[in-house]
């Protein structure tokens, strides 16, 4: 990755989020509120992104390792926890980062808490690695990520 190229990719991705309405937490929650007055717009975001993605990722498939199909507890529990946070606030990681430009205290606090959550996961992973080493087991046998085996 060249920095100037990844800056352009981040910009295009972020502009897409803005145009799509993903950067408005109220709109995201309006999509998630299927029992209320439902705004289905974000289903169109997924359709547009995946429609293009199916073609481009097929072209790019030689550049990437084969996709994993492994389903484990960490994947399911982690995704469920992520969904609770996403529903509570209306931010997933991309829109949360984009919202930093507003310099709003709530956006800044959310990103700080998100970094803390990321750091906590790394800490749990390294603690488990240390415990495994002390126990004489081979640390990291399950994979690079000590906490989830990914």
């Amino acid at each position, binding site marked *: 990755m060249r920095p100037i190229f990844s800056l352009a990719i981040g910009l295009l991705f972020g502009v897409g989020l803005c145009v799509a309405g993903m950067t408005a937490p109220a709109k995201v929650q309006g999509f998630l509120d299927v029992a209320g007055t439902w705004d289905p717009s974000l289903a169109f975001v997924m359709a547009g992104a995946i429609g293009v993605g199916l073609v481009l990722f097929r072209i790019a498939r030689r550049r990437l390792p084969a996709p994993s199909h492994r389903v484990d507890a960490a994947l399911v529990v982690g*995704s469920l926890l992520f969904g609770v946070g996403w529903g509570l606030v209306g*931010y997933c990681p991309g829109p*949360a980062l984009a919202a930093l430009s507003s310099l709003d205290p709530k956006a800044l606090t959310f990103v700080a808490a998100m970094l803390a959550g990321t750091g906590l996961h790394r800490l749990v992973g390294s603690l488990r690695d240390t415990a495994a080493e002390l126990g004489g087991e081979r640390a990291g046998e399950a994979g690079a990520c000590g906490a989830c085996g990914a």
Partner: protein
Amino acid sequence: MSIDWQNFTPWASLLGGIAIGIAAGLLAARSGRILGVSGFVSGFFERDREWTARLALIAGLVLAPLVVGAFTAQPSAVPDVGWTAVIAGGLLVGFGTRLASGCTSGHGVCGLSRLSLRSAVATGAFMASAMATVFVVRHIA
């Protein structure tokens, strides 16, 4: 259930989605990387030789609303929720996405585009729990 026709933006959302798909697809085709925002955030803690490139992508993401805002009025990017929800939500999003090795972009866009079963399960799980959370907050609590 009734449709919120007032806020429904199918064309803008489709167009924005296409831009997201192009960004993710180009990064994969040119750099062989998955555009997973939670992964890029996690990479902030890893001082390897791609640190600058990852930070540059995040910088582009942060700058994007300013660019779009220069051309057209943007809806509020600030969540209308209390501080407890902001902090708890941030922690859950940060921890959960790393435990699951992906979020809406990595699993929801890239993984589904690659027809990964793993990403389909993740996307189903976080969509379901996000909808359940909004249901509890808006219609029960």
